[in-house]
């Protein structure tokens, strides 16, 4: 970054308001001939979900350093330029445009959460560089053909996949144990509501005996969930589904522990399986059901363990769900660059990425696939497991077959008018 800063410094001497604006126009070292490939990353590095951005950044840095050590691409190496959008979609849009237009970034890794992801998506429609969304799980981003952008891809888990997997897993358990009375507790915003509705839809599809007796919707980032917890004490469901995540889920779990809610109610959580959540909770009740977010023991492959060690060495904490998604995105980008021999035109890279398969320690089988039809990742772990009080915190991962997920996804797309 120092070269660019000097360039700015020289021009900055022009002084005055007009010149102050003019220095913004100073282009960074231009594209193809430069030795370094700059990769821009808008993400959230401040505020309550800063860990989303910090762990995404660390994963990309780790991946890039490994790829650069391995010799780069056609004599070119990767360099990350990350910017904080402060969680604001309009800021994300601005930062992305700046990264492309001003910093000479030739590839964008979009580390924004869902709303910022949509904003970045629109920027990439205007400025067609390769963009890989790594943290947005909202299905419509890639599933809705109206939103399709030729050079945009998603390398992240997706709501609809999780919903099918959750439905299959939950219905198996509910049939085994006769869990009929269900309650949900999810954050009151678009993702929380969609995710919960989709989960219930598939759970009831596989086990029609499931009855939803109550739903509570605490606010996103609420500090306290006591009234939702005591509501559950009154309703006495047999099982509860929750799409709470991150710090909110940590608070919810610890407050539920005080009431001893979960020995009596079977919890199915979409996000408990994220290592920072698991490690933050002081008393993790055993036997809770959670979707896989990330775990160093699953998939049980040496590559995965190596990634966990490498990441933890840099970040000083276990990888997050966001971390593996970004790491895998880098693997895809790396493979595409290898095939183009370092050429970074959006169309060229997109052509390579379409339908690309890579072998990865994070694949549930052998390979991860960037699906051609809708530019989204499949073949990642969609397992569910049960909690244990000590590391690795989640065990007995039960994988849900991708064939089943894909079949249901097709139906869902038809239903939504996406296919």
């Amino acid at each position, binding site marked *: 970054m120092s070269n660019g800063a000097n360039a700015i410094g020289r021009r900055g001497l022009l002084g005055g308001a007009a010149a102050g604006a003019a220095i913004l126009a100073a282009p960074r070292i231009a594209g193809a001939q430069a030795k370094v490939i700059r990769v821009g990353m808008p993400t959230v590095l401040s505020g*309550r979900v800063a860990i989303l*951005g910090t762990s995404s950044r660390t994963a990309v840095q780790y991946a890039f350093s490994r790829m650069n050590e391995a010799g780069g691409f056609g004599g070119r190496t990767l360099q990350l330029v990350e910017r904080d959008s402060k969680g604001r979609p309009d800021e994300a849009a601005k930062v992305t445009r700046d990264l492309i237009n001003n910093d000479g970034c030739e590839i964008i890794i979009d580390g924004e959460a869902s709303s910022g992801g949509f904003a970045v998506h629109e920027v990439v429609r205007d400025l067609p560089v390769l963009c890989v969304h790594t943290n947005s799980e909202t299905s419509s981003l890639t599933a809705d053909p109206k939103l399709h952008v030729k050079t945009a891809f998603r390398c992240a888990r997706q709501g609809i996949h999780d919903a099918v997997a959750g439905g299959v897993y939950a219905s198996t358990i509910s049939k085994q144990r006769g869990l009929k009375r269900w309650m949900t507790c999810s954050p009151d915003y678009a993702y929380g509501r969609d995710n919960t509705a989709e989960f219930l839809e598939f759970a009831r599809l596989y086990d029609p005996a499931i009855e939803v007796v109550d739903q509570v919707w605490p606010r996103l980032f609420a500090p306290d969930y*006591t009234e939702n917890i*005591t509501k559950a004490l009154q309703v006495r469901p047999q099982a509860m589904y929750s799409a709470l995540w991150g*710090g909110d889920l*940590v608070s919810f779990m610890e407050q539920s522990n*005080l009431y001893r809610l979960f020995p009596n109610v079977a919890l199915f959580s979409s996000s408990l399986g994220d290592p920072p959540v698991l490690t*933050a909770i002081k008393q993790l009740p055993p036997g809770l059901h959670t979707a896989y977010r990330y775990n160093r023991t699953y998939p049980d492959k040496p590559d995965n363990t190596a990634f966990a060690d490498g990441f933890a060495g840099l970040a000083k904490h276990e990888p997050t769900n966001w971390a593996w998604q970004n790491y895998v995105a880098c693997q895809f980008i790396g493979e595409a660059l290898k095939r183009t021999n370092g050429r970074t035109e959006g169309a060229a890279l997109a052509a390579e990425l379409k339908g690309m398969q890579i072998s990865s320690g994070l694949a549930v089988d052998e390979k991860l696939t960037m699906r051609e039809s809708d530019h989204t990742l499949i073949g990642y772990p969609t397992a569910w497991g049960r909690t244990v009080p000590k590391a690795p915190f989640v065990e007995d991962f039960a994988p849900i077959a991708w064939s089943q997920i894909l079949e249901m996804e097709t139906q869902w797309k038809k239903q939504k008018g996406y296919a």
Partner: protein
Amino acid sequence: MNLDVLAGCVTTASCFVTQVSTGLIVGMLLFLVASGLSLIFGVLGVVNFAHGVFYMLGAYFAFAAYEVTGSFILALLAGAAGAGLLGIVFERFFMSRVYGRDLLMQLLVCYAAILICDDLVKIVFGADYKLMGMPESFAAAPVEVMGGFIPGYYIFMLAMALGIGAVLWLGINRTRLGKIIRALAINPQMVGALGINTRLLYAAVFGMGCVLAGTAGALAAPVRTLTPGMGLSVLIESFIVTVIGGMGSIPGALVAAVLIGLTRAFGAIGFPLFTDGLMFALMGLVLILRPSGLLGTRTA
């Protein structure tokens, strides 16, 4: 709306006890933060928009002290004292320079404090989630009262908050210092003419308000996730409480906090769509009908 269920709950001892305790638990932490906000506004006439910062600092100080010493009492003290000391520093070096200036200046100084402290906390403690943890004895099974359940830690928390509230009330109404502080709120120049160092007192009152926020943060640290920026939602809630109860009125803060707590506890049973929007609507309504709040005395 589900009034049958609500009626059923109110008439069932177990449900009633649990939900009332829920309302108090939610309300009392809110009260601690809001009373500090109200105290500062009542005496100094400034709105401490940075109040959430001291809640956050209290939580993080308590967390750090608990990590180091393992003593819950020391953690609480560290949270309260740390927030109070930084509050005094903030008042002396920054806030006191904008007293009597327009609202914008005060707002901006507080905004700067929020930005700086959130970043400092992220630098020192990291961005990942933290919880303080609590001694084994608090984590025991919830106490059963007439069929309802109240967790041990919450009983302790309620007792602490009520105790602090009582001490605050007695301190302000019964002690000489409290009488001086009340006089300071009304006529600072006269208080100065009676030989009392008003600047020192302002700093002390500001610090006291921050101690209240810090104590709330420390009490919350075992059960609420610590993240940079955690003060924001608490600030907004306590702000609503303060406005509804009456800016400057500590009994008002208590009444409004418990009111909000109970509304949420029984609202969860009877009309589960009680959201933030309704809280703001309530605040708007109070401002329209009675701008000085339920128990406030200052006129708008």
